[in-house]
């Protein structure tokens, strides 16, 4: 299990254009990241829906290739 930070960033940027995306490597093992996303796409969605949008952006890589992702979402 592992994914490059650059790949994670590309996946999120593709799903959340014109958004603020901050990714932090939490353990230096390409397996534990945090992602803070501020996007207008979250407008009107509750937290579960917002986080599901983030998981969807990862195209099935969550918990298969990427072990841990701490997610924080904000409406812009």
């Amino acid at each position, binding site marked *: 299990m592992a994914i490059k930070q650059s790949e994670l960033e590309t996946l999120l940027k593709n799903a959340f254009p014109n958004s603020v995306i901050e990714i932090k490597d939490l353990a230096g093992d390409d397996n534990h990241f945090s992602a803070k996303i501020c996007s207008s796409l979250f407008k009107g969605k509750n937290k*579960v829906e917002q986080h599901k949008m983030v998981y969807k952006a990862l195209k099935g890589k969550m918990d298969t290739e990427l072990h*841990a992702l*701490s997610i*924080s979402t904000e409406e812009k």
Partner: protein
Amino acid sequence: MDVNKKIEEIINSSEVVLFMKGTPEMPQCGFSMVAVNILKHLKINFNSFDVYSDENVRQGLKKYSNWPTIPQIYVKKEFIGGSDILKEMFEKKELTKFFLDKGIQINK
């Protein structure tokens, strides 16, 4: 037994149910530990289920809730979220009101 039936049985076993890695006494993952600590801090009665004890439940749960990670928290059968959402609600002081509104006993 059909895995969805088993999942629903677990979800119905208590008003608050936490699917986690490990047990409240011995969490096996940081995110599960955060969720347990928050529920313990608010002194909420909850049932937990160790997904490491049943791989079918662990994989079935992802489809059941359309949520790929563990832990998963259910309150009165409703999926509330994972560790990040529980932590965010806790930090924003929204969690106590949330539980009280759902009729869940909190004895701080």
